[in-house]
């Protein structure tokens, strides 16, 4: 029996507002426990929520970037359940009237084909706090309670763990582009729950789904889903029934483990939040946020391909982060050689970022600094290997390319007369090789070039050396 995998993702993104969703407490991460709390977000009696306007704008921006229809009226609802990290005993969320619906995101599969993934809905909700368990006691930290989130729910359009991971990555890229979420997955401000079920190939009816909670890396998402696919395939083929349950991914064993089993669906007793009036999003706010949207990753990639003559692959990598794309464009403007810039970005620059685990915005070489180096390379002042050495020295000394090249006398000898003089000297001392060359052993040319470079301390412009040698040794030469 062949099975089809059906996956849908629910992604929670923390909106990067400075204050919480319903009070003025700070949202800063890593503070001492219960420092960023007040009566409102710690659920004292009598408090009422007041909606953070910027959070609404960020959520609207998110919805628009995901091609959603923003509802003019949406309603906050209470999701009721007891847990110590939930101070009010309910979470303020949105239920049957969410902020936005019916969007889509395009992903690119490994074979290069594109696929549109439906976005069912985008809604706003507040985050819960955190429980910390010691040996005998449990403690509650409410710093995160009330931090604004958007929940982005996909259609069950994903068919493989790889697609799921591509979709998650794409969402991250978009959220970073529109600057509404820091997307720091280690700090938990971008999290993912996955729903997965298998059904017989061609079947219409969905299989029983399993929810895997809190997958906070692309790798874990893919691993967890891959494991679950195998696990369910095996179960189904042996006639075992899949139980609807919530699971957690165990990163040490790379398996998913049951957290709780669901009988039907949880009863959260949703009802309209009476402390907040319905959220009305007027056309002007939608228009304003539409105008605030930057060029989004797909559009930017297509433009890079046509404007800079890049391959799809190069365009995709250079537009994977907005800052990286901006850096590239600034560099191109200064160097005026898109291909050269693209190659350097993808080799030297990205290597350095990865090695130092930093982002492009923290990179010590600005586009003007790097452009100075690339302009010298492009103009033949230095050669490729010198350029790499200078690049590394720039990183460690923070000196400009020109300073390093000048100080070390690294610039290439461009003067044809001077190079000819060296060539003549070399040829004079290499009569044997010249003879061999003339007899047809053209591979000795490499040796001769090497000698010339050595004599010039590696500074002779290789293309001029080649040109002169060709002239002197080439057919019809009377040497």
């Amino acid at each position, binding site marked *: 029996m062949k099975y089809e995998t059906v996956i849908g993702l629910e992604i929670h993104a923390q909106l990067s507002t400075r204050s919480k969703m319903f009070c003025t407490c700070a949202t800063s991460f890593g503070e001492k426990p219960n420092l960023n709390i007040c009566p409102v977000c710690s659920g004292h009696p009598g408090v009422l929520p007041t909606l953070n306007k910027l959070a609404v704008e960020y959520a609207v921006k998110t919805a628009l970037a995901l091609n959603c229809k923003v509802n003019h009226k949406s309603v906050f609802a209470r999701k*009721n359940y007891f847990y110590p990290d939930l101070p009010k005993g309910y979470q303020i969320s949105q239920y049957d009237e969410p902020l936005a619906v019916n969007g889509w995101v395009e992903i690119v599969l490994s074979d290069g084909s594109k696929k549109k993934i439906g976005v069912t809905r985008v809604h706003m909700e507040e985050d819960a706090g955190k429980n910390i368990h010691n040996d005998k006691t449990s403690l509650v930290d409410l710093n995160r309670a009330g931090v604004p989130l958007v929940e982005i729910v996909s259609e069950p359009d994903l068919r493989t763990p790889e697609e799921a991971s591509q979709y998650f990555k794409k969402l991250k890229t978009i959220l970073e582009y529109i600057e509404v979420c820091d997307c720091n997955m280690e700090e938990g401000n971008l999290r993912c729950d996955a729903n997965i079920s298998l059904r017989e190939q061609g079947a219409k009816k969905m299989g029983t789904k399993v929810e895997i909670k809190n997958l906070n890396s692309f790798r874990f998402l893919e691993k967890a889903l891959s494991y679950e696919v195998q696990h369910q395939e095996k179960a189904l083929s042996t006639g075992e029934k899949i139980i609807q349950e919530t699971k957690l991914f165990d990163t040490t064993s790379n398996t998913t483990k049951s957290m709780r089993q669901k009988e039907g669906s949880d009863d959260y007793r949703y009802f309209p939040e009476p402390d907040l009036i319905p959220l009305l999003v007027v056309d002007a706010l939608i228009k304003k946020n539409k105008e605030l949207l930057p060029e989004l990753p797909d559009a930017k990639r297509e433009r890079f391909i046509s404007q800079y003559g890049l391959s799809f692959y190069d365009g995709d990598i250079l537009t994977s982060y907005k800052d990286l794309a901006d850096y590239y464009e600034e560099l191109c403007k200064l160097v005026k050689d898109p291909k050269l810039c693209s190659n350097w970005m993808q080799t030297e620059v990205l290597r350095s970022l990865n090695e130092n685990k930093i982002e492009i915005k923290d990179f010590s070489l600005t586009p003007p600094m790097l452009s100075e180096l690339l302009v010298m390379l492009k103009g033949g002042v230095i050669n490729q290997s010198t350029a790499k050495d200078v690049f590394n020295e720039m990183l460690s000394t923070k000196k400009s390319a020109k300073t390093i090249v000048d100080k070390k006398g690294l610039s290439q000898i461009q003067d044809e007369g001077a190079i000819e003089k060296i060539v003549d000297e070399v040829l004079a001392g290499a009569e044997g090789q010249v003879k061999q060359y003339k007899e047809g052993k053209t591979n000795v040319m490499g040796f001769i070039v090497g000698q010339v470079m050595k004599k010039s301390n590696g500074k002779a412009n290789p293309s001029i050396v080649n040109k002169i040698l060709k002239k002197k040794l080439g057919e019809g030469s009377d040497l």
Partner: protein
Amino acid sequence: MIVDVLRSSIPDIAKMLRGKKISCRELTNVFLKRIKDSTKLNAFITVMEKESVSRSEAIDKEGIKNSDDILKGVPVSLKDIFLVEGVRNTCASKILENYVAPYDATVTKRLKDRGAVVLGKTNMDEFAMGSSNENSFFGPVLNPWDNKKVAGGSSGGSAVAVSAGLSQISFGTDTGGSVRLPASYNGILALRPTYGRVSRYGMVAFSSSLDQAGPMARNVDDLAIAYDAVSGVDHKDSTTSKKGPSNVYEHLIKNMAGKEKTFSRCIGIPRHLIEKGVDPEVASSMDEVIAALKKLGFKFKDIELPHAKYALDVYYIISPAEASSNLSRFDGVRYGYRSKGYKDLDGLYKSSRREGFGDEVKRRIMLGTFVLSAGYYDAYFAKAARVRTLIKQDFEKAYEGCDVILLPTAPTTAFKIGEKTDDPLTMYLNDIFTIPANLASLPSLAFPSGQNKAGMPIGMQLTGRHFDEETLFSVAWMLQKERPEWFNRVSVK
């Protein structure tokens, strides 16, 4: 001097304070002493003796100028549901027995800003759930007119405090009649403002879509001053209307005083609601009120509120539903009562809530949880919300033909303590006339209309259009002129 103070209105007191006939400290002492002498009424849960004395001394030191707010130096009390920073706030529940408020409610803050002296926190039904004030962890409040009878609820402590002269005015909350009913049982006035007119911030929530804070007083002037002091938009409560503070007292002084004859309105009577179940003495008191109003030139019209008969049912679905969610925060985790006997998280929740809440509160939490549950939501909560809309529409239609609706506040006068405690359904019937205004978010003013043969106070209520408190006050003002013996009564021998 004591008698002087007891029969005085806020404007009288303001004059005495400004004329240095009495200091704020002396005035405060008069009330504190009366509170002490009346402890058997059980009107207060927390008396803020130290705070009020030092506050009154500070006011005396500052002095009271003519230009100062009329409330400066006036002793007030608050139902133990309005948070006062640094003072315990129990909501008459064991679960909050030792909870100290970390901030001021907006009502509290506005009163403090105007210079009022807060004497203490009054007794109430636990979490404002009740009609008799017998559901208090601190014991029932006694009716000062007959100590064997209930004070009415849920703002019973506040009503008794005002009626017995333990504070000049008081503030209660009205979710289904909780300021009007005890006002009626105690011979005083109370206003339930239009929903959204007074901030709910810092007022412990019972049923968020129905709760409103309301003033209680012995005369129309005081009630107007009290309402003006706390009404108006509050950015901390998104459900407040955008209107600024009300200006009713000024309206009464400028537009009504001496010009009563030019004021004429049409009063609607929903006869079909009072045909059955109304005590004959209450019914004849209503006739007396109608006669007085006719004499004053008011016109009358019979109106229909066809869906009002469902009001009680709707109320006992919506309010417990919201309450079940609002009271979830009392879980023994962060503050309040935590049971000692628990083994795990589930046990912590269960025993803390089982031991911390009283029977009526538990009854309503269970009811509310049930009506919101999957499979029952549409049959109960959603349907109740639709009927609520129909009730609102009934009133809208009625106000096309009249300006104000007159009804008794309660079908009977105060009943005996313990008489209805075993029968929640009979108890719930006390609120049958008050609840429709809450469901329709309308303003409603309860006023005294004399007493029955046994000397127990009877009360009527005027319900008006949205945000038209002014008309309610105007009518009450004229009645106060016409029948002064109904007003300003103090239940002290």
